[in-house]
């Protein structure tokens, strides 16, 4: 848990008790449900782990987007694609993310935390194309 605190501070993150959004993506090559954490478990650990660094109590986190991104050579079944929308990845974070993807890093987390803004609560995302 202390690891998340340390990484957050190292990335220049500051403590705030504003209402917060969080995005947690877990990159796993060849995801195995029996071995790998699911999206819910991952974000719970991360959000708990950020207490004391990003906020005092994780009750300020009112919006969480979390996902497991199964990437790597060994997909099951036929040729598959995963589309990642990187349009708004902050400039200071994209180099690390791009490098991790390029190197095929085994298991890594992408975490964003920031102030909750209006209209971040989006409904019907399944309708978007």
């Amino acid at each position: 848990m202390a690891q998340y605190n340390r990484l957050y501070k190292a990335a220049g993150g500051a403590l705030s008790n504003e209402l917060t959004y969080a995005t947690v993506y877990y990159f796993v090559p060849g995801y195995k449900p029996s071995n790998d954490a699911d999206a819910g478990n991952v974000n719970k650990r991360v959000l708990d782990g950020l207490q004391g660094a990003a906020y005092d109590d994780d009750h300020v986190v009112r919006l969480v987007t979390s996902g497991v991104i199964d990437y790597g050579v060994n997909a099951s079944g036929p040729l598959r694609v995963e589309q990642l929308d990187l349009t708004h990845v902050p400039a200071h974070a994209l180099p690390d993310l791009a490098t991790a993807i390029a190197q095929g890093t085994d298991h890594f987390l992408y975490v964003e935390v920031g102030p909750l803004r209006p209209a971040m609560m989006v409904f019907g995302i399944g309708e978007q194309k």
Partner: protein
Amino acid sequence: MKVEDRGISSVYLEFAAAEELAGNLTGDGWTVEREAQVDDNRVDLVARRGDEAIFYEFKVAGSASPAGWADHLIAQQQLARRYNAAFRLVMVRPPRQMELEIEGVERMLFDWLVQHPPMEVEDIAGHTLIDDVDSVDLTSVRISGTTAEVSGEAILGVTLQTGGGEEIGSESFPFTFSATLDLATASAEDVDVHEVDTTSWYGTDDQDFDSDGPPDPKGADINEF
């Protein structure tokens, strides 16, 4: 047989994924441009629909990334944002590598070839005895019910004899084939031998000065058989 998708180049996989995505986007009313030139940059795929635009970059998961690919990705994102376009990375995930074996395929081919020896090896000596079929490497397999249509290459082991039954020696000849196998009875229904490589017996042209029979340095003469 290895179903070796890693042997297919990353370029091909990216091309296949881009083709599929382009088809889907077109079906949804997008105008698609592949390998689009945008300023001084080449974008793998650009899709436009009304005021919307999406720039796509394709990457085969786990493939070696060329030096500077991370910088390239950053540049592509910045380019897309300058054009008020979305930027998407398409991770292409090749199918799992599989190994497929047909148990007893050597025996099935052997049983057939004993009955139907290839002409190339029959012509070598007075008598050609088929000893075994080994090192079968299937390059394609199509299975329907209990029938398998296969093709590949293998090694044919033979014993050569004179017309009088005197043994000349043993040889191994690589050959290519296609075959129809009955998996229920573990037998070949048909085997078509495409080519038998007999250069180990005849030698190559530069070894065989009279272009007839085994290599001259061996001193053998098929006319004696």
